[in-house]
């Protein structure tokens, strides 16, 4: 009889983090709890040597390079972009990869630390039964730029991380700044 290999701590953490990310993206605007606060846990869950990653702080770059991913300084080459803040990040956002009509999956995943408070937003689209309102500390300029860059099905998908809590906004979501 085969014995079950018990899950190690990393496996349990990644599985639980992924469940949080998956449900966060399936129900945009719904905050999900991750087992560990911060962006490093998401890097551990999603990123490995098949990825090209941009990260804007030395700590994050170290966490990402430990996974074997190629760390790049060029956002337009990165498939995963980790930002510690959306302040003064316009130069990076405008370079985000949005995929192509043939390969929408080439669009980047943006993971950014942002408080789940502040600017009111109204969300509608797949995953949302009735248009919902949430608070997210991202400048209106970011949403304007997102609307300009994301021509569905092209676009990028965002995770907003506030400590251990994550909100997902996929490219399919329509965001109104209130």
């Amino acid at each position, binding site marked *: 009889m085969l014995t079950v*290999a018990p899950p190690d701590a990393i*496996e349990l953490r*990644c599985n639980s983090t992924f469940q949080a990310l998956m449900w966060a993206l399936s129900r945009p605007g719904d905050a999900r709890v991750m087992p560990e606060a911060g962006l490093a846990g998401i890097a551990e869950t999603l990123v*490995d040597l098949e*990825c090209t990653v941009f990260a804007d702080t030395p700590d994050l770059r170290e966490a990402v390079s430990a996974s074997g991913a190629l760390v790049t300084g060029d956002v337009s080459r990165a498939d995963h972009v980790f930002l510690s803040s959306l302040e003064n990040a316009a130069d990076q956002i405008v370079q985000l990869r949005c995929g192509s009509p043939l390969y929408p*999956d080439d669009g980047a995943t943006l993971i950014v630390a942002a408080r789940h408070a502040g600017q009111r937003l109204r969300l509608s689209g797949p995953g949302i039964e009735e248009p919902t309102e949430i608070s997210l500390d991202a400048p209106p300029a970011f949403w304007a730029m997102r609307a300009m860059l994301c021509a569905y*099905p092209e676009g990028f998908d965002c995770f907003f991380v506030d400590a251990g809590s994550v909100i997902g906004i*996929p490219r*399919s979501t329509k965001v109104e700044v209130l």
Partner: protein
Amino acid sequence: MSLASLTKDWAATSYGFLDASAKRELRRKMLKAIAVPGCQMPYASREVPMARGWGTGGLQVTLTLVNPASTVKVIDQGADDGVNAASIRRFISRVSGAAETWDTLSASIVQSRHRVPEEVMREDQILVLQVPNPEPLRGVEPNMSIARQMHADADYGKLWLTLYEQIVRKGRIMQGAAYPSMVNGRHVMTPSPIPRWDVPKLNMAKHLTFLSAGREKRLFAVPPFTRVEPLVFSDRPYQVEEHAHLTCRRSGLSGYFMNEIPQDNGGSTFEVSDSNLGIKAIQKAEGAPTEIGETWYRDGEYSA
């Protein structure tokens, strides 16, 4: 950085059979699939100890999702006790320690071949459909590069044409399973070979659906509360199979999708296809405490 920090301790097997890098690749693709509902995302499709075409795509998604707290239900044409379903369920629980169940209500992950359970799935449940042919355009465009371009252009005229030809030739739409359906108003997907009966269950559903084709190496998803509209002409309404008047010979249930059992005298009898629903109905009739959840169809009419 030291050698110890770059390596891991030896282990006989990986938890959940798939190795960590295979899971990370699937996770990335599953997130992209959710972000673009109904759009087929290519993935590597690793080897699993089962032949391609027997549910390897669904199995890989389930193995990525599963953890020791999961409860897994696997069905094959609605039945939990088919050889394929039983083998997959036992394999998943052996490599992950997840609990097994036949009951849709107690499952956290439902892996299915060709059916969606009759009981309404909740918002915390995940449906994983095994897909043999993920490309709705395969029948009209064998060249997959051109089919990809057609998806990019939302050029689905040829699919409408096949439906039109069926109406012209036979007087009605003959597409019995894998009915092409528009997801989120943009991508047409084939909802795997589920009968027409099951397609409305995916529209604006509470649960999350993954559709994964292991042999064809593509997966796509239908997030909760996403529009899934079967392609129909405005003067030809969508029709599900006429099973509303049929009665199951074993459980006495009626108004659900039935399996036809041919008889020696040339006639046929019927059994409810969602076998565990039939089992629960029999247990209830015998007085055992059984909970039957709300069903998508009531008296043969879709009513969710």
